[in-house]
């Protein structure tokens, strides 16, 4: 199924030949790359969303780069004073609860709601402040449309208020190696042991492929 480039902007979408877009293909895992390089994505994989995000190192990043690993992902924003620090703390606790091997394989991804305030520099500072290991944690910012779409596939609701802060669902999502939603932990209380077990299961399931 050729759905990898569904969500390029309309103008790009009109250019049907993937070969006309080598630059986009290089970063997005769009249909330009050799078919043999990877098997087709599962049709439930959120990696079908091929948005290009930007890391806190200023590098382009597509979620499909996480393929093959269990992923613990949450949406957040750095100026969030209430729930987001607790979500990051919960993700840290999930990580602590993993067996050592899985702790190394899993990736912990934070995607910001705040395309205005959460610049590369702000994300960088957040990483330092929270001591998030660059080898394990991925911090991303992106375009408003891509943020809306990712939230939509995850089932995350959010809304910006007049002060520039966001109301949002408190949701931690576990993805398996195919980028399929394996488990979600809703809310701020409990559920950490289940989430950790889900990461292990997701990681083991992905291994055979």
């Amino acid at each position, binding site marked *: *199924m*050729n*759905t990898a480039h*569904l*969500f390029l*902007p*309309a103008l790009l*979408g009109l250019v049907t030949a993937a070969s006309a877009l080598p630059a986009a293909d290089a970063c997005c895992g769009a249909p330009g790359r050799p078919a043999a390089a990877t098997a087709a994505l599962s*049709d*439930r*994989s*959120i990696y*079908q969303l091929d948005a290009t995000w930007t890391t806190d190192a200023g590098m382009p990043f597509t979620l499909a780069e996480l393929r093959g690993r269990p992923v613990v992902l949450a949406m957040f924003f750095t100026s*969030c004073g*209430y*729930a*987001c620090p607790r979500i990051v703390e919960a993700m840290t606790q999930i990580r602590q609860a993993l067996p050592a091997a899985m702790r190394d394989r899993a990736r912990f991804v934070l995607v910001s709601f705040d395309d205005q305030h959460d610049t590369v520099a702000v994300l960088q500072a957040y990483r330092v402040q929270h001591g998030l290991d660059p080898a394990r944690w991925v911090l991303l910012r992106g375009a*408003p*449309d891509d943020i*809306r*779409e990712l*939230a*939509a*596939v995850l*089932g*995350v*609701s*959010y*809304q*910006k*208020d*007049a*002060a520039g*802060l*966001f*109301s*949002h*669902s*408190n949701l931690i999502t576990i993805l398996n190696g195919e980028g399929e939603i394996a488990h979600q932990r*809703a*809310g*701020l*209380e409990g559920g950490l042991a289940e989430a950790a077990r889900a990461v292990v299961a997701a990681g083991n399931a992905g291994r055979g492929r």
Partner: protein
Amino acid sequence: MNPLPSIHSVRLALLLGAGWLATSAGAEVRPVPPSGMVLLPAGVYTPLLRDAVDPAKIPVAAFWLDERPVTNGEFLAFVQAEARWRRSRVSPLFADRQYLANWAGDLEPGAQAPVNVPVVRISWFAARAYAKWAGKRLPTTAEWERAAGAGYRGPAAKAEADFTARALAWYSAPTPAVLPASGSGPVNFYGARDLLDLVWEWVDDFNSAMVTGESRADGGLERNLFCGSGSVSAGDREDYPAFMRLGYRSSLRANYTVANLGFRCARNLAQDLAPQAVPDPSTDLFPSSPSILLPAP
């Protein structure tokens, strides 16, 4: 509908940023709408639920809105052009199993889905993809509600008992097996039809409603599930249809398809396709015009 369809007005509108113009006589000259769209002048939206810090009224920049919901015939042209959105090929991530289930086939709407009837059983992703394909976008909640807030004769539906009665009657009526034709309803104050009495409609930010759908938790924001200042308040407790829409939207997921859920598209006046839920005052399209903000409904 379109008072100035001439080349000259098009040119004038283009020259002047497609904004509203004041002629020497002081009369307003409207830019020429794209085919099938109507102008929603800049105004305000009064959100139903809001944060303590939010103003009661949110400015909404002027935009174009489809006069009526997108039809099966129009959606057929889209799936003919974009094979990945055909019923047999769509990814379950982007549309559930009932996607276009009322169609006779991949490229055949059939008797249950006449070409002039609103397309339904389409997901948010599909509606969004159609809009992009058409060079448009989905309206935001603020934009849609602003359009739907108008009555037949004025910008405030609440002042018109016959309008409100029709909207309420629709909520209580069952969905017919075959829907009425798109555009068959009366025009509202802005020239749009069928906003409140034909199908529910997707909005771009449908997933902005902080309602859990769990009645025991819906005392406002559920602080455990949602992060916010926690003190939301209702803008207008009597606007029952608006509460219905809020609840309805919050019950949706982006890949859901429903037998009476369709959509229509919007477009920015400035041709910038990015939706603006809350326009930044610093990027106001027409900052110098004092006549942009209509009186609050």
